[in-house]
């Protein structure tokens, strides 16, 4: 059986991932490119006795050294030399898409062009003569539809054919006399001076003329590059003198010129641009005055759907866990091991698993919004405000929206921001977006104090989070992140109907991060809480005498000015640092709510007793306790504190991973604590003055 290694390349939003998912399904591996914070997707599939290993290269417009994604892609092509590269092209945007194609041809890649989204091209009135294009480029051109099976068989056959007899395309490129001539000159010197280079020498010549820092470094490292580099300098100066522009721009021009030639011979365009359906929708969705209300409506619907579907599902998870806890308790009898499993593991991790349906539904909806192209519109609509208020551009808004689900995927999504300063700032404010882990805390306290207007109270917390994020960003922008905001350019993809498979895979990728957190950090933490609440030996589980209780008692005066100076509230905050949803389960553990004997068997939320089969916010025992511990005002101040204070451990860890230092997570932890303390203090003391 032949093994074929192929790579998928193309601009962003051309349906590359759709094709990748169609081929590999769930048999894909998502990791990072070595040493880079760029996602690497790999998968394998079988076709006609061939085992095909496919790598999904990052979506790029070009192959310069200016972005990590581009460097990763070209290094892969140069060093790993995939047998075949399938270049997915948005047929409706063929001219711009070919810019990348041409650069891969410069690299001597064994290419196949897969024209995708031909329906859109058709709608725009474009007629592409595939045969002509294929002859001009010297590579096969296949029409496909990544969303269904159109052209799939043909594409696979072509992959096998091209694997067996590769195309040689490098000579097809014709870049006007002047440019070609100079590239040739440099190439000749490289060929005579330096041997054993991985990439074609003509490509290296182009890159040297473009002043590509990585390639210049590679040439310097050979130790034989002096003559070449001298010649390059001379020619660059020559370009400047003759064209009044740098060599770089002249080469860009030459590429686009070559493409324009191709297009005029193989694509028929309508005389007058047709107005597409996408344009019609955009007239409303990106409208000056309607844009924002539409955005708010979509967000409101998103949360509405999430909660109305997610809550009952969460209830089932809870029932299942309660049954599991009870079964274990019955079959194992009383004892330290039982307490460890039921209170420690099921109580802690189970309390979090209850929110898994909620989170997955939220991510599913966000994925659908993203895949349909709406999130790009949201970025457009919000740019005005983001710019004015925050000094960030609209693109930063997409990671922030994801932060409503969970900050971890939100922070990872900041990878799409090119400017390091903007990226850091966005990472620092994402934790203020009220993630789904805070919800159980709100749900509990709202049920105890504000049941008449629960929706409004929760809404006010979301809003407060956004407002604090805006204010903090504005302050940071004027202090530590002083300077110009990054230039903003991004593609506005046409609207598309998302595929179920694509949306589900997308949801899974993000949701899995949360599950991983539940499986690792929260599990470990639940065990720590359990141990600290059981020690020293002989104390009542979770009582004031336990280590947990003692820590809470010592630290609680700090929080007295905020209205929640009781040790239990403090303990919940300390543990909540590890994961905010733990706040609820801590209360459960500390009060032994639902516990039948009140002894060391006092279970955490969702464990052994019959009462535990209902959610904490519906549990009368829980509500009574909350009413003893808080007043409505201090309950609100407490929720605000939980919303704003130190991001959870998983968030801090991912900030560390993305910034490669502990400096930023450390900073985030300290400043959010200060902000949370300040805001809660103002709310509580202000509320007291107003007589609440």
């Amino acid at each position, binding site marked *: 059986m032949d093994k074929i290694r192929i790579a998928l390349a193309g601009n962003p939003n051309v349906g590359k991932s759709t094709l990748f998912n169609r081929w590999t399904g769930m048999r894909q591996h998502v990791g990072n490119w070595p040493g880079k914070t760029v996602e690497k997707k790999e998968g394998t599939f079988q076709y006609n006795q061939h085992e095909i290993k496919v790598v999904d290269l990052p979506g790029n417009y070009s192959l310069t050294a200016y972005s990590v994604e581009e460097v990763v892609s070209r290094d892969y092509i140069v060093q790993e030399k995939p047998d075949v590269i399938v270049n997915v092209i948005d047929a*409706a945007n063929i001219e711009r898409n070919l810019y990348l194609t041409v650069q891969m041809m410069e690299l001597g890649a064994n290419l196949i062009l897969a024209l995708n989204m031909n329906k859109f091209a058709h709608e725009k009135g*474009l007629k592409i003569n595939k045969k002509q294009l294929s002859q001009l480029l010297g590579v096969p051109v296949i029409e496909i539809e990544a969303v269904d099976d159109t052209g799939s068989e043909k594409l696979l056959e072509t992959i096998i054919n091209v694997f067996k007899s590769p195309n040689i395309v490098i000579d097809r490129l014709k870049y006007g006399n002047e440019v070609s001539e100079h590239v040739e000159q440099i190439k000749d010197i490289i060929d005579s001076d330096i041997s054993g280079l991985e990439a074609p020498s003509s490509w290296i010549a182009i890159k040297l003329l473009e002043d590509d820092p990585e390639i210049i470094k590679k040439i310097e490292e050979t130790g034989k590059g002096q003559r070449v580099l001298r010649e390059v300098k001379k020619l660059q100066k020559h370009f400047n003198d003759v064209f009044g522009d740098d060599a770089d721009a002249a080469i860009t021009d030459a590429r686009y010129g070559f493409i324009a030639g191709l297009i005029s011979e193989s694509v028929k365009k309508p005389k007058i*641009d047709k107005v597409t359906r996408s344009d019609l929708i955009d007239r409303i969705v*990106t409208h000056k005055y309607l844009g924002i209300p539409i955005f708010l409506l979509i967000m409101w619907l998103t949360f509405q759907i999430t909660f109305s579907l997610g809550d009952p599902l969460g209830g089932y998870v809870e029932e299942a866990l309660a049954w599991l806890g009870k079964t274990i308790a019955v079959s194992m009898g009383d004892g330290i091991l039982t307490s460890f499993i039921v209170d420690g593991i099921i109580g802690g991790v189970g309390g979090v698993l209850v929110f898994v349906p909620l989170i997955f539904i939220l991510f599913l909806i966000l994925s659908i919004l993203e895949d349909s192209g709406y999130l790009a519109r949201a*970025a*457009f609509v919000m740019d005005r405000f983001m*710019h004015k208020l925050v000094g960030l551009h609209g693109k930063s808004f997409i990671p922030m929206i994801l932060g409503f689900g969970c900050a971890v995927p939100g922070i990872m999504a900041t990878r799409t921001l090119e400017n390091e300063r903007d990226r850091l700032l966005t990472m620092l404010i994402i934790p203020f977006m009220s993630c789904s882990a805070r919800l159980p805390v709100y749900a509990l306290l709202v049920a105890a104090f504000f049941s008449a207007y629960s929706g409004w109270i929760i809404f006010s917390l979301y809003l407060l989070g956004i407002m604090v994020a805006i204010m903090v960003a504005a302050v940071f922008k004027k202090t530590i992140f002083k300077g110009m905001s990054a230039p903003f*350019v991004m593609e506005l*993809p046409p609207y598309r109907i998302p595929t179920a498979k694509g949306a589900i895979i997308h949801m899974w990728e993000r949701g899995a991060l949360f599950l991983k957190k539940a499986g690792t950090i929260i599990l470990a933490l639940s065990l720590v809480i359990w141990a600290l609440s059981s020690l020293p030996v002989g104390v009542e589980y979770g009582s004031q005498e336990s280590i947990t209780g003692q820590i809470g008692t010592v630290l609680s005066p700090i929080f007295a000015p905020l209205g929640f100076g009781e040790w239990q509230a403090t303990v919940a905050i300390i543990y909540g640092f590890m994961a905010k949803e733990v706040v609820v389960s801590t209360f459960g553990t500390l009060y032994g709510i639902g516990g039948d004997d009140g002894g060391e068997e006092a279970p955490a939320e969702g464990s052994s007793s019959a009462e535990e089969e209902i959610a904490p916010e519906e549990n009368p025992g829980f509500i009574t306790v909350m009413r003893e511990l808080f007043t409505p005002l201090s309950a609100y101040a407490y929720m605000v504190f939980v919303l704003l204070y130190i991001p959870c451990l998983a968030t801090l860890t991912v900030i560390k991973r993305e910034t490669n230092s502990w400096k930023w997570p450390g900073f985030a932890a300290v400043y959010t604590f200060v902000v949370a303390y300040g805001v809660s203090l103002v709310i509580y003391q202000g509320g007291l003055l107003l007589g609440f």
Partner: protein
Amino acid sequence: MMSLALASPNENLKVVQVWHGGKFKNKLSDMGIYKDSQIKVIKNDIPGPLIVDVKGSRLILGRGQAQKIMVEAY
């Protein structure tokens, strides 16, 4: 000659000069905006970013960035 930020929608324009530096200038040319390229404004609501048409694809372009791109009608 005028700045792209002042152009009205649906006019056929040509880029005369891009007053951006290294990295961003490159990014723009990779996406299809470079000296002598054709460009058309689709949406230009002040304040806020612009939507432009470049070789048939739609790009969102920040207002500040559009101000530094000089165009003329052709």
